[in-house]
């Protein structure tokens, strides 16, 4: 048995105790929120120019992604509620 096989047989089949259908759909919003702050996105955002709202680009990008996280989580909320209420 290789390590991937063990991982699969021991975890994946019994994993996700009660993540609801809506929550499973919403996982993608969590990923977007996190990846916005991770390479390779930050490799692209790691620059001074252009200045936006007076801020160097890297700082602006992070402020933008904070709003982005809020938007993602709001979407996640509506998707979760909408799917699970049915």
């Amino acid at each position, binding site marked *: 048995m290789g390590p991937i096989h063990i991982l699969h047989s*021991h975890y994946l089949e*019994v994993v996700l*105790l*009660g993540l609801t259908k809506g929550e499973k759909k919403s996982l993608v919003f969590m990923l977007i929120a996190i990846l*916005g702050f991770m*390479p390779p996105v930050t490799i692209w955002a790691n620059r001074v120019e252009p200045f936006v*709202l007076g801020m160097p680009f890297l*700082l602006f990008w*992070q402020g933008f992604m904070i709003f982005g996280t809020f938007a993602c*989580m709001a979407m996640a909320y509506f998707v979760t509620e909408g799917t699970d209420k049915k």
Partner: protein
Amino acid sequence: MTITLVIIFGWLLATTVVGVMAGRNRAFSMEEYFVAGRSFGLVLFYTTAAAEIYSAFAFLGLAGWAYSKGISITYALAYGSISYSIYFFLGPRINRLGKKMNYVSQPDYLEDRYGSRWLGVLVAVIGVVFLIPYLQLQIMGSGLIVQLASGGAISWQTAVIISFIAAVIFVYFSGLRGIGWTNFMQAIIMLIGMVSVGFLVSNHYYGGVGKMFETLVQVKPTHLTLPDTSGNGLYWYASTALLSGMGFWMWPHLFTATYSAKNEHVVRRNAVILPLYQLAMIPVVIVGFAVAAKAGLDPAFAAKIAKPDQAMFVALLDSMPGWVVGLLGAGGLAASISTSSGIILTAANLTCRNILQKGLVPDMPDLQAAKIGRLLVPVFTAIALAFAILAPSMLVNLLITGYSGITQFFPGVVMGIFSRKPTKTAVISGILVGLVALFTYQFGGIKAPFNLQPGFVGLILNFVTVLVVSTFTKPVDAARLDRFEKILSAPAE
């Protein structure tokens, strides 16, 4: 007494009165004292979280780091998004378990989930060991804020003794309910302070944020991209943000706060709006940059800043009238007292509930344990105060590793909710392996690969250990697993 001090101490008095009033006419019990009877609604939970999130670091450390090292401080903006988006899935479940099983502390959950009293004791002990230096840091931060805001008229030792007598009074009488209500006030003044300060200082020196950054690009070009002046690069930033994001809700006082919410909907809605709090950090970071630009052009100004932590208040005293400094000083004091009060209560909670009642004296009634917990409130405060005043540098090493250490609870907590497989031996081994790796990298003189955070490497090893050890150790008994699965898979009420 100057206007600055009148404002700071007036505010302190007001919060103490509110804190004590909040707990009046409430029957004393373990649930009431440590989790405010699980009663906090959307707003009170939101402001309580704000007050716990922003500590003295938000007023001293953020600006100081931006001033001395540069933009790597913005990992603090990133980790919030990571931690709140994970919390969206994790938080409601923790709240639900707390409600169904009457948990009042973080180890309550872990010991019940894995059926191991000693896991509970271990987690409680590690929690207290890392909370005390954190509390000491808050105490020293609050003292420094008052000393700087008063222009040196009040020594930091005097300031902390006055401030922490106030904190002990309302925590002792009102428990988490007192903390919740004072946090509501603290959050407001703190946020006003954080947001206004960024614009005030940049406008005063440069006539605007944009002009300030144009100057900074000339004076300190390495401050604005990664790797910045300190050499912290993109991978340092990413791993630190991930580590802090996963560790955030593992802090025992924040974990316990989740139990205090009225229901899981309050928790989930908060996961949506909590990211917005991170915005308040941007102006403070901007102040740090403004001070860096000013110091680069004006050596006489730079000489006034003996340590980076003083950057923000040196600039404020230089540029603002007394009442503005007073309001910001009150905001800074609010930030550190509100965080400290939660830590004090939680250290007492862990000790009386998990080390004493569940670990050493199993037949102790809840009420008696809670009374002992209340007595521990002044005791822990006194210990941290003593360290702060008599041996300020003694616990520094523990502080550096605090966040990384606490994060080692993450695999046990999360896998306990989402998987049936992990065993108690695996979780205990994982925590120990993670801590050993952390300390080896931090103090053993070995560099972690890719300049990753040592705690992040520890966390990966911790996960691997839990996965591997679970395959050959005794599983958690089926009845217990079924009990958890039944609660977790039921539809929300």
